[in-house]
């Protein structure tokens, strides 16, 4: 059976690459620290020696729009283009082509259906920054095949926080059953408190530092009970209108299980709290 080598849950600040590669005299003061933290975080994936990446993110109206917006979707293609014109324009993120892993995509899709998750699926999927940002930060060579999973954290009605947790648990079972000697890592991205296009955007900190502090505590200690007691769609809205991306971090902890992280770090940036979490469920790379 396959080995779950690592689970990573990370925020995806789309300006990381631009902020850390512009001429040093133009860089923000925190750029060097940000780069150090990201490189240390990257090492937690490298150390796990993964062969395949299950990538969790959310399409930000790049391929999918309101005429047909999936709640949960799995990519099943042999190869994936990445980065849309408007992401290159706004964030300076380059284009990529990632190899897919059709065998694991199919096995995952069937396993999800068997467990009551009737996923939408795509055989021509172009990935957006929710998947490419973590590739840039955790696997910049982009040299591993991926199985992309998209969730709806963006357009109400959204699935519940509990549903994201349960989906993570289902993905874990399926990875554990995958008949292969490969090492699989799951890497997913989301947000802590976040405001976009509203009165609390682009402040000195994220819109709700108190939520950020608690969320880091809950995730790093594996405290799913506290999350499910405290986090609802309404509470996330109060923390910032785009905070619902937190549910993808809940999903990632669902893949790991209710256990403490082996590694976590954070960085208070303008506009958001960046946070990085890694679990080694098998103790494999600890």
């Amino acid at each position, binding site marked *: 059976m396959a080995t779950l080598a690592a689970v990573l849950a990370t925020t995806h600040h789309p300006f990381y690459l631009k902020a850390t590669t512009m001429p040093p005299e133009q860089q923000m003061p925190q750029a060097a620290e940000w780069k150090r933290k990201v490189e240390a975080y990257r090492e937690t994936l490298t150390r796990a020696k993964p062969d395949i990446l299950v990538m969790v993110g959310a399409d930000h109206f790049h391929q999918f729009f309101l005429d047909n917006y999936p709640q949960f979707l799995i990519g099943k293609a042999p190869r994936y283009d990445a980065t849309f014109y408007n992401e290159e324009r*706004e964030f300076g993120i380059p284009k990529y082509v990632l190899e897919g892993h059709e065998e694991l995509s199919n096995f995952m899709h069937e396993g999800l259906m068997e467990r009551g998750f009737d996923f939408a699926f795509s055989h021509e999927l172009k990935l957006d920054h929710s998947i490419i940002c973590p590739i840039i930060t955790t696997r910049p060579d982009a040299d591993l095949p991926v199985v992309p999973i998209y969730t709806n954290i963006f357009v109400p009605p959204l699935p519940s926080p509990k549903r994201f947790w349960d989906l993570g648990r289902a993905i874990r079972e399926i990875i554990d059953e995958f008949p292969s000697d490969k090492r699989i890592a799951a890497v997913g991205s989301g947000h802590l408190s976040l405001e976009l296009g509203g009165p609390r955007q*682009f402040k000195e900190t994220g819109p709700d530092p108190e939520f950020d502090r608690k969320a880091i505590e809950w995730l790093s200690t594996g405290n799913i009970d506290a999350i499910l007691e405290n986090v609802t769609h309404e509470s996330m809205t109060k923390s910032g209108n785009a905070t619902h991306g937190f549910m993808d971090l809940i999903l990632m902890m669902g893949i790991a299980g209710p256990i403490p992280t082996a590694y976590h770090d954070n960085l208070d940036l303008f506009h958001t709290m960046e946070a990085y979490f890694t679990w080694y469920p098998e103790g494999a790379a600890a």
Partner: protein
Amino acid sequence: MSKYYVNKFLFTVDRDPELLRRYKEDPRSLVASWEQSIGPKLNDAELSTVNFLTDAEREALIGHDYVALFEMGAHFFLSLTIFIAIYDEDYMAKSGPLSFQREFAEKLQHWTGKDYPSVALWQAAAR
């Protein structure tokens, strides 16, 4: 009103450099041609006949009026992205990084601490 159609405008224009240029330079003309020939497209072969902009929505789009769009419940991501595309560079040159984004937030300050207009597309879920 059609929140869906406002979002469709923002979505289709933001992803197309030529439409975006026209929306920056001559919004009234671009909105008019969008309503004629782009908005109704379901795909390259099919048209849909069921959507329309209200006068208030049309004027908000023509005026690059992101406050009105926020108050109509246009999706925050689409609205922020397209107006960053239109204004960020000029503001940056004049007033430095993030000056447009901060002005955007400032103009919405009267919503701080209140329930924002919902981005949900159905009316009953006013949250």
